[in-house]
């Protein structure tokens, strides 16, 4: 009973908020900033993977596009940074309309491959369009302007950016707990049945895709402003892969899992880099493989399962069935 209460939403929310507010006191502020940006990115990916059953392997396209757009707007217009970040999110959402429209007709591994292909296309464009993006040199000298307030100290910038991330996380929570979110889960679990109930499955998937891209863009835009620099890394496929890894590590279809996965991976990367370790991928890869083998529901998914004895209201652990084709078998 007490354990159930501890795992309840108000307590969790309070703990999460406290952690977010004290983070830059505990760890190096720029790392704290990375952590919350990646947390929102991972949650956005979970919106699609956990609640719509679509594994996107191309979300770097949205994170990276927003990073470039936010950076360019901040460099060239001198507008306050939240405006630049919002414009980045809008750009990501706009890009997601055609990409999503062409992708949501496929499911499972095919969906992953199609999104990956589009992301590689975006990478290619960013690499070639040197005049705009700086190509391999990256986009440099992005200011952090907020009505003349000095935000050059990463410690203060963290608190300036945190509300944007919290708003993004709240949006993700709202979407999942909305009538739309209920339909998404139905589409994920049994698309043929959802269709027979009058829901246009592809259009629902497309809207979920665009919302997920917008939130990824919000995170990517803030990430760019925080670093004052955008590199090609932001549109590279390993960035998509890292976001998926965070979600799987934390627990698919849990929202909180993405936050925890992001915190762990960013901290681990930073620790290894600081220690001068060069092959970071080997360690994070091993940690990832071990965690997924031992806790199939991911860290948060497993913890919640053990604490409350169920896997949550609607989230589903395990990526195995994300190939949502199972219900389509009625075409006999």
């Amino acid at each position, binding site marked *: 009973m007490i354990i159930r209460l501890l795992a309840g939403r108000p307590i969790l929310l309070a703990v999460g908020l406290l952690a977010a507010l004290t983070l830059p006191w505990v760890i190096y502020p720029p790392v704290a900033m990375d952590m919350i940006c990646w947390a929102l990115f991972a949650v956005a990916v979970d919106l699609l993977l956990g609640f719509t059953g679509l594994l996107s392997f191309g979300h770097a396209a949205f994170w990276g596009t927003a990073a470039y757009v936010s950076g360019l707007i901040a460099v060239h217009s001198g507008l306050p940074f939240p405006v630049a970040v919002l414009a980045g999110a809008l750009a990501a959402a706009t890009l997601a309309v055609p990409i999503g429209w062409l992708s949501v007709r496929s499911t499972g591994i095919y969906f992953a491959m199609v999104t990956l292909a589009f992301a590689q296309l975006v990478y290619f464009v960013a690499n070639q369009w040197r005049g705009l993006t700086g190509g391999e040199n990256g986009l440099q000298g992005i200011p952090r302007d907020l009505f003349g307030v000095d935000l050059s100290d990463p410690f203060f910038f963290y608190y300036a950016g945190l509300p944007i991330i919290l708003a993004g996380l709240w949006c993700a929570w709202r979407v999942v707990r909305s009538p739309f979110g*209920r339909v998404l889960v139905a589409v994920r679990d049994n698309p043929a049945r959802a269709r027979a109930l009058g829901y246009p499955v592809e259009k629902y998937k497309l809207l979920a895709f665009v919302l997920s891209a917008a939130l990824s863009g919000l995170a990517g835009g803030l990430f760019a402003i925080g670093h004052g620099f955008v590199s090609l890394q932001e549109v590279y496929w390993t960035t998509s892969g890292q976001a998926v890894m965070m979600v799987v590590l934390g627990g698919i279809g849990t929202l909180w899992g993405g936050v925890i996965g992001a915190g762990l991976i960013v901290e681990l990367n930073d620790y290894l880099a600081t220690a001068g370790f060069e092959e970071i991928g080997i360690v994070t890869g091993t940690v990832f493989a071990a965690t997924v083998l031992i806790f199939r529901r991911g860290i948060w998914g497993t913890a919640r399962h053990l604490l409350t004895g169920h896997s949550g209201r609607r989230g589903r652990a395990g990526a195995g069935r994300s190939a949502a084709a199972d219900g389509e078998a009625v075409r006999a």
Partner: protein
Amino acid sequence: MATVLSAQGLSKEFRGFRAVDDVDLDVTEGSVHALVGPNGAGKTTLFNLLTGFLAPTAGRITLARQELAGRPPDQIARLGVARSFQISSLFPQLTARDHVELALQGGTGLGWRFWRSDRRMARFRNRALELLDEVRLANLAETHAGALSYGHKRALELALALALDPKVLLLDEPTAGMGVEDVTATVELIGRVRAGRTVVLVEHNMKVVATLADTVTVMQSGRVLVEGPYADIRRDPRVVTAYLGDADASD
């Protein structure tokens, strides 16, 4: 009585194999219309064509003078052709009430409101409970679909189809795989919900057909063999050889 759902010259070809071959079908408003025939006669394919899950190779489908062929399944469902599935097709993690609420929401725009709380779906609760009561599931409203018995799952399927307030209700083998008791209960249930509704059903059990159907269409090899009231078709020599003869012998 007026024809509510009709198909003209409907065909479906799979790589040279004609699963449904030039079928004409007229479903009279307020009737129960049974589709029978041996396995592979094309009954389920015909159902999938009528509900948009398959696109016809040729032919027309009209619902109260509205063309249905070429429309996606979700649109056909909203226009008024609701279906159940041969194999129960539910969401194991949702309760019976969640299912019916989701079905009731299907015809409204609420499903798009990603900025609203899902508590708004409470507006469907009373109607959902009414429908569950109609199929005798009122006491199982909060049970997860995964925990329902086979017969109860089929009843929930029926409630979902009814929730769409359809002009025509398509039931794909509603008694498939049921024991005698469940069959009796299901026949009683369909007999009750058919009041004021039009029902098309695919059915293998001839006793069920005899009890419920006003009109029977016998299909064989994708074509309509014969059509008429049960009393007439059961004496038709073509039908006896094609299908009923076997069924009578096994009864």
